[in-house]
């Protein structure tokens, strides 16, 4: 049997979707700056990219505050416990209709694989994008003087590629819940379906 629980709080959902929208917009304007296509025009793409970037940084700052004050950050503590099983599950068990080796609950929202991925996002990709982005911004118009912005640009773009790959897999993974859309519904409404056993655990 499964049961509905209030999994994602209001700020968490707002943070998630706002971040998603900003990242999509940043990718769209960013790859125009990268030179991949010409839609808005270089100048407008740069200016809008800046606004979106600083909005995202603000959001991240609030999110960090929220994670620490609510203790939610503990969900992201990486663990190797059952990590193997979780990986094996996606390669094998999922095709055989098995249950996930690690359940989901309000206390343990993330499985070991998710923890690893999201911690990677939080401590590697976000700092990479924020630092290269901010440096790039001040090189363009402010007091940071570099001979060349080359490596800043390359690593900022590398982070963008990683983020897109992350997003593709992330979106696909939402289909591995109870139903194809249950994870997405949960992130919208906050209410998720979890197994009975998991709750009592």
């Amino acid at each position: 049997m499964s049961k509905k629980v209030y999994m994602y709080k209001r700020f968490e959902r707002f943070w998630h979707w706002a971040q998603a929208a900003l990242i999509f917009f940043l990718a769209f304007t960013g790859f125009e700056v990268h030179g991949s296509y010409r839609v808005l025009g270089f100048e407008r793409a740069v200016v809008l990219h800046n606004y979106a970037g600083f909005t995202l940084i603000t959001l991240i700052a609030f999110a960090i505050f929220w994670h620490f004050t609510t203790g939610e950050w503990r969900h992201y503590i990486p663990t190797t416990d059952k990590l193997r099983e979780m990986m094996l599950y996606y390669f094998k068990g999922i095709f055989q209709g098995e249950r996930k080796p690690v359940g989901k609950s309000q206390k343990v929202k993330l499985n070991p694989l998710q923890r690893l991925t999201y911690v990677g996002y939080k401590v590697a990709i976000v700092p990479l994008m924020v630092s290269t982005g901010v440096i790039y911004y001040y090189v363009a118009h402010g007091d940071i003087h570099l001979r060349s912005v080359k490596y800043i640009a390359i690593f900022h773009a590398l982070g963008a590629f990683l983020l897109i790959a992350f997003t593709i897999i992330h979106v696909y993974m939402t289909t591995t819940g109870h139903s194809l859309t249950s994870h997405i519904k949960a992130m919208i409404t906050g209410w998720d379906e979890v197994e009975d056993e998991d709750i009592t655990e």
Partner: protein
Amino acid sequence: MSRKACFFASVLIFLTGAFTMLSAASVDHSKFAELNRNFSKPEELTSACLKCHNNAGTDIMKTNHWLWTRKTDKMPGKEGQMLEVGKKNIINNFCIAVASNEPRCTSCHIGYGWKDGNFDFTNQNKIDCIVCHDTTGTYEKFPTGAGYPADKDTVFPENQKLYKKPDYKFIAHNVGRPNRQTCGSCHFYGGGGNAVKHGALDKSLLDPAKEIDIHMSKDGGGMTCVDCHVADRHDIKGQLFSVSVENKDRLSCERCHTRNPHTQTLFVENQPDRTYDIFKNRLYMREKPEENFTSRVLDKHTERIACQSCHIKFYSTKHKTKVWWDWSKAGQKTPVGKPKVVKDQDGDPIYDGKKGEFRLAKNAVPEYYWFNGTVDHILVGDKIDPDKRPVQINRIAGECGGSDSKIWPFKVIRGKQMFDPENKTLVVPKLFGPKGSGAYWSDWDWTKSAEIGMKAAGVPYSGKFDWIETEMHWPLTHLVVSKENALSCNDCHSRNGRLAGLPACWIPGRDRSLVFDIFGILLIAGSFAGVTVHGALRYQAAKKRKED
């Protein structure tokens, strides 16, 4: 006094002040006895000028307008060696060189009688004062007169134009500061005709629209040449790098516009030269631009990019300029023995039997190079490397990140000209001269023309010649337009924009790391393929489980 009266009084005082400053003539030359006589020869007028302006002669003789050279010890490859470099002894790929062609070339010299290598550069009476200081617009040098005007009314056969003997007295009574016409009478017509040479200096500057030149337009700054090209004792500031070597005595936009032109207004205070007065009276009204991200970005661009690169969108905006000159094609004649001439649909020559084949450009997109203000030139007699083609007649120095290096716009003139394959030198041909002088334009014999030209230039000649392709770089700095008509970001920040191919540190939107881009694309494609396969397998498995 009432408030209203006060206001009108201050307006009156202001206007009187402004008027006094603008009408600068404190001297009426027509009142001088020295100038109230008839002059039969221009030298007589010069000598009258020098009686009062008694230092002007020595001052003039130090200038490059007089010498057609500048002293330099900074010539790339010959550093430390004191050289004299200028029009007088460099080679170009228009009419090649001055030596042996003096009377034609020197019709734009500020002197009288430089007709061969024996001109006396110390004779002050040979200075042509009025070619610069005439304000009547009636003074003209004769095109083949070695700097002299016509001594009697003469029709120049080439353009059927009548050159009148100047009224020296009238001109002398009306001398003044140089104006667009006087400067333009030579500088607009370099290379043998309007707009031929520079690409950004032509007669459109006599009265340009705002979209042609913001500074000189009546609707813009209304400035004249000498508002920027200020002079110190006849030494006029600014130099052109088709003939100059060193990064000095340059004019710069920053002098007035500051180093942060997109966020600051003009300098008007503490300018120790004449531009101060001009701007104080007329141009200091420029509004302070809005300061935002974009304007600060543009200010930052000025560290690496010359103002001209964005603010000269096209060169030769109104009149066509030559961008290709192939001397090897010269020689064709009409059945009656006249030089063959072919014109394009606008009536501009694209072939001339005397000169060869031309290509003309209008509204042309400049080429962009790094430039630090130092230029290497091929001087008459210099060895070239015929294996490196096209031969670079002048080499623009500069690189990304180099000190003083900025991206500059250039007109590049390409063509084919003679060289001596044995001595490995570019040939100075004698082009102009009467029949029998060996001049190509009269005798049509390149061998003879080369022999005589090289002899006059004092360079050994093997007797053999061949044609070689050459390139010459002309930095563009006139025909500046305002931001509305300037380049936009897209013009350079694109894969195939104006700066495609320029070795630059990194231009966002143009540059990418192919390795990282391929990695990124593979990563995205791989992720997509991965989830698709995974999803398909899940679907299959689920279907199978249902059936079971």
